Each structure stands twice: as C-alpha cells, then as structure tokens.
C-alpha cells in the first residue's frame, strides 16, 4: 500500500525542483548542443546532499533510500537536468553494499569525488570486462564498455566484471589510473556525459559483495533512476504540450478541445502515470527484506518509463505542429533526451528481457 509522500520526501522534491529551476537547465541543454560546456550541476547536487544520498551517515552520507533518489531524478528529468547522478548513485550504492572503506565512501558522499558505474550490460552497446584476481586484493581489468553514463568527468570507476569462470567480480579503480582510458563522446543529447571506458591491465581494488546482495544491484538501480528521469521528462513534455494545446487556436477554438489532440495528451498522462506507479513499487522493493522484487520492479519501471517517454516526446512535437520540429523550440530537446535515453544503460529492451527472465525464474 502507498501513502502520500512523507514531509521529508515532499521537502526533498520541492527543494530539488526549486534548485534546478534556478539553474535554467533547459537552456543549458540547448547551449550544450550549440557547443557550449554543459552547466555544471554538481555543486547543486553537493549542496542538496544528493551525492551522499545512498551512503550511510557513518561516512558523511544521508543514508536515505532508493525512493528519495527516484524523486530527485524525476525532478531532474522534468527540466532535462543531468546532475551526473545516474552514474554516481548506483556506484555509491554498490560501494556501500560491499562495505568499502569509509574514507572512499565519504569523499564520494561529500561530493569531493565523482563515481560512475562500469558494467558490461550498462553501456550504450554491450561491453566486456575480464577480471583476474591476483590473490592480494588486486583485480586486474581488461576489456571495454562503450557509452558509460557519467564516465566523462568521473574520478572513480566502480567496475563489475567477470573472472575466468564467469563469476561477477566487483572492483573500484581511479579513472586516472594506469591502464584506464576514458574517452568522452559527444552525444545526441548535449546534457549527457557519456564516455567509452577501456581497461588494459588496470589494477583495481577488489571488493566483495555479501552473499545476500545481487551483483545486478547497481545495474538495476541505474535503470530505475533512468526510469524516474524518463518519467520526469515525459511529464515535462506533457505539461508543455498541454499548455500549448490550451493556448493555440485553430478553426476558432483551442486545439486541446479537439479529441484528436485531447486523446493524445491523455495517452501521455496514462503512460507516464503508469510508469510512476512502478517507481513507487521500486522504492518499496528497495526497502523490502532482502530487496525482494527489486530487479523485477526496477526493470519494469525502466520498460514502462521508456515507453512513456518514447510516446510523449514525439507527440509533444506533433501537437506543436511545425514549430515543434524547429531548433528554436524546446520540444526537440525532450525528443533528443528520449531518443538517447532509450539506448542507455543497456537499452530499454534489455530491461524488458530482464523482466521476463525474472518472472520465469521466480
């Protein structure tokens, strides 16, 4: 069952919306396409405590749950903000689960350093990372993952590779370490910080996840965060299209009075609201005993949210007519966000397949 947001959650959400509004993030997304550097939202994230959201208080974190993170990402998505949390939060969650040393977690929680998650199934194309453990706590990494979220600018990479037996191995390595190559790539959506990551004998610190923590935790959390962001963006597109449909007059009346337009807007609302229900379920599963159902809920949220944004972004353009397809209009920024997001973090279809696999295994 679900309650309304707690006071703390409402405050977090309102504060996020207000902080992002001051940064003019939609304009920043446009400026980045025009070749200017994207506005650095990291100081906002640090000030608000978002960087340490999933780190426990013993390491200067806030020690909140996934649902609070999802609320913040939804607020980000609504205004096309990218505060580099999609890489940082799953990476810190894995370090937290593995009990990494407090100094390392503290630097990340305080925002002094930024982390990204490198996982072969979380790039914009499939990747591969082979791990050889040398027996003294060093994991030697070889391989590459293309299109890693937030790897451009990350100080720390949290890496999930596989050893010769195919067993997942978690490790952490500085982005500037020998044998690590991070190649930023310019994307279709200027607000992203994607990079191709390659390892050639890089020496990382091996970490051990407790037996009751699934190695897919980081991947699933990243997909959930991306889902929340997509729900926010779809809602932003809906609000934009609704405002225009009330304002724009054709044949003597507001175009929103025509069923052809009205029904599209309701479809945006339906898909967005349905995906939002799955975010709530994802937050609940995170808090459940043994995180039961988290993989299923997170990947279902990702699937439904990608569908919602895939529908909302182009329909927002269509409702605007020709003006929606111009460089000057903001509709194209939501469209760019949608087209790229769908292919990130392993892609929306991989999340759907994970849903099916989880159901058939359960």
């Amino acid at each position, binding site marked *: *069952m*679900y*309650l*309304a*947001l707690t006071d703390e959650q409402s405050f977090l959400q309102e504060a996020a919306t207000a902080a992002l509004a001051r940064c003019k993030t939609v304009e920043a997304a446009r400026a980045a396409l025009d070749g200017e550097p994207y506005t650095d939202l990291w100081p906002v994230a640090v000030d608000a405590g978002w960087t340490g959201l999933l780190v426990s208080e013993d390491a200067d974190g806030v020690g909140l749950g996934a*649902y609070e993170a999802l609320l913040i990402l939804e607020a980000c998505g609504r205004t096309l903000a990218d505060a580099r949390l999609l890489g940082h939060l799953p990476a810190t969650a894995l370090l937290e689960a593995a009990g990494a040393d407090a100094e390392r977690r503290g630097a990340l929680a305080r925002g002094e350093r930024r982390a990204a998650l490198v996982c072969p199934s979380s790039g914009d194309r499939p990747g591969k990372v082979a791990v050889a453990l040398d027996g003294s706590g060093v994991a030697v990494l070889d391989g590459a993952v293309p299109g890693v979220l937030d790897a451009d600018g990350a100080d720390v990479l949290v890496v999930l590779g596989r050893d010769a037996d195919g067993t997942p191995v978690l490790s952490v390595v500085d982005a500037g370490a020998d044998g690590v190559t991070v190649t930023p790539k310019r994307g279709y959506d200027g607000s992203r910080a994607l990079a191709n990551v390659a390892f050639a004998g890089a020496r990382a610190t091996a970490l051990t996840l407790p037996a009751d923590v699934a190695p897919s935790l980081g991947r699933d959390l990243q997909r959930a965060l991306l889902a929340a962001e997509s729900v926010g963006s779809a809602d932003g597109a809906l609000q934009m299209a*609704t405002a225009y*449909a*009330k304002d724009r007059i054709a044949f003597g*009346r*507001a175009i*929103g*009075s*025509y*069923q052809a337009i*009205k*029904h599209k*807007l*309701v*479809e945006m*609302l*339906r898909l967005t*609201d*349905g*995906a939002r*229900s*799955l975010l*709530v*379920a994802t*937050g*609940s599963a995170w*808090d459940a005993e043994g995180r039961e159902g988290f993989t*299923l*809920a997170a*990947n*279902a*949220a990702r*699937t*439904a949210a990608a*569908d919602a944004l895939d529908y909302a972004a182009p329909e927002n353009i269509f409702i605007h007519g020709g003006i929606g397809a111009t460089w000057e209009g903001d509709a194209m920024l939501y469209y760019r966000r949608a087209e790229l997001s769908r292919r990130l973090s392993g892609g929306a*279809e991989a*999340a*759907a*397949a*994970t*849903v*099916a*696999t989880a*159901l*058939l295994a*359960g």
Partner: protein
Amino acid sequence: MSLELTADQQDYRRRFRAWLDEHALHAPPRHVLEPQDDAAVARLRAWQGVLADAGYVGITWPEAAGGPGGTQAEAVIVEQELDARGISGPFDFIGIGMVGPTLMAHGSPEQQDRYLRPLLRGDEFWCQLLSEPGAGSDLANVQTKARQREDGTWLVNGQKVWTSFAQHAAHGIMLARTDPSAAKHKGLTMFAVPMDADGLKIVPLRQITGDAEFNEVFIDDLELPADSVIGAVGDGWRVALTMLGFERVAVGSGLHAVRLERLVAAIAGDDAAREDPALRVRMGQVASQLLSLRHTSERVTAEIADGRTPGPEAGLIKITSVLASLDACRFVVDAIGPDALAGGEWGHQVSALPGVRSAGGTEEILRNLIGERFLGLPPEPRVVPPPAARPVAAATAAPAAPAGATA
C-alpha cells in the same frame, strides 16, 4: 510509501485470515471474464451470503443499512486477502458497488429498509436499466418513457440494452424520461423495477465469446407503483451521476485484467516458448504494463483507504486494464500458438475484451473526461439542438455526459 497498518488493522487482517481458514474451504474461485452458468451463480450467491453474515460485504456500509460500519482500509484488506487466495468476492458487485450506495444517497427510508439488506446478502441481485440503443455514452439521451397516471402509478414503455445479470436480478434500477418537454438532462427520473414484472421481456444478447452475459430488456406497458421512484421525479440525472461516480470506482479496480501469474504460467508451461529468447523482450513489455496496472490499482486503493480522492489514475486504470490485457492475450497466443484461440482462458479473453473496452463508457468518452477534468482541456463545443426541441440555455449548460454504458 509503504503503509504500515495500524494495530487495529493488523488485527482485523488476522481475524479475517482466521475466518477464511475456517469458512473458505469450498469458496468459489475468482473469475476473469468467464461465463457463469446457473449452478455457478447459485454457488456465488450462497458465498456472498456467507461473507455478508460475517460482516465482510459492504464493509463501509453503516449499521443502519445492514453493514458492519467498517473503514475503507478494512474493505481494502478484505479485497487483498480474497485476491491473494484467488477466492471470489461477493457476486453482485453492481448492487454492492453501485446501486446500494445510490439508494443510500437518494432512496427513501422505506426503500432503504426494503432493499439494502437482501442486496447485501445476495438474496436479491440488482441490474442497471440505463443504456439504450440510442443512449450509451450519451446516457442522458434515454428515450424510455414513463407516464404518471391519475392514481399516481406509472406506465413505462421502451427498451434497454447491455443489461448485465438481468436474468439473475430481482430488481433493476431504471432511468426513464418522465417529462419529454423538459431539457435533455432535466426530464429524467430513476425507478426501482421488479424484474419479474409483467411488461418486461428479457432477451439474452450473445457476444463475440458466444456467451450471453448481457441482455436486452424490452419494456411494454410496465406498471410501477408511485413509490418506485428513487429520489425526486425529474431528478433522475442527478441520481444517475451519483451511481456513475460509484461505477467508475468499481470498474476502475481493474476487475477485468489478465492476471500476470497466468501469463507467466502459460509461457513457463510451454517448452518452446519458455526457451525462446526472442520472446523475452515482448513478454517483458507486456508484463511491465500488467505490473504497472497492478501497482496503479494498489495506489488508488490505498488512496481510497486513506480517505483521499483518487486522481486521474482511477479512470486511466480502466483504459490500461483493457489495452494491457488484450496485448497480453495476443502475446500468449503468439507464443503458444493459435490453438489457444479455439478454447480456454486466452481465447475467451481475446473475444471478451473488445466489449469490455466500452463497458462503463467507451474509451473515447473516458479520455474526454480525463482530459477535461484533470488536464484542464476545453470541452468540445456542444451541438445546440433546435430551439423547438430544447431550451438552448439549459442544454448548453448541462454537464458533460459521463462514462455511461452499463457494465
């Protein structure tokens, strides 16, 4: 977001579980759009009586109406426990969910006294005589005429359609035009009708499934006593709106949705489908929609239990329930082969769902309603009828026709 139940609510859940352990051994199973023969209906009727006698039907109904005077949260708990065990709830959801609350709002004390208790126990089922061949989503266009005679009694003539369970019902709640000269929404009156009366002919209406869950009801010189009026004469539209408000909540519960467990079982039980990686993506997409539906229903239920008014999601559930379920059925048939169409649950639902899409109002009308109410979009201009037929001012000021066809 997870609601911790209060100690009282936890206690209520424990007591209901214990009661079910003792009484539900032979309870009828939950059905999704499956045909019900007379024997099955008799069994469901008996089960409703057992539930009602223990205070587990009409849980929020006040004691004066024969209910246990419980809370929304308790109603939610009962529904969850029945659902979890795959046990049927009370059969007459039309009576309990729609007619009963309407009688409580608009019925006379005598009517409440006469009808509510037998309704609750399932001794007397109800049906809705609302839609007509020319009045579906545009329900206020009802043409069935009731004329009051000198002695105060009424004479009714007309035709109703899409009447679920008319063949099992003891009573019908009927909307008829009592003042043809008044504006469209003004000249209507609501009546209680005994379904065994002379002047009523009930004709089963076969659907795509081959079953006849609906009926046509032909009304030919039906005589009704003066006290069969529910609410005031000429106030039938207001009574109908009350009932349709309850109907939206009831239909919005995702009653007709495919159960995800059945979909998983169908794929898991088919050797070829289970191992086919090419099916996984589509299965995940379909399953995500069903999961979204489930969690949205839980959200609405929790909002109601919490005393809040649900937002647009209550209406959106109806749309998603049909679209996601049809998608799910088609996926299963694609995966396990078209033999599944010829018989069994999947073929039945493939045939039943297109009709469900229009139950409680067509999807298009529902989208209009949600767009106007929750997105604040302007309504389409109403066509103004010729001045001779209806006063212009009253017709344009009338409320938008709600989702109106009977389920």
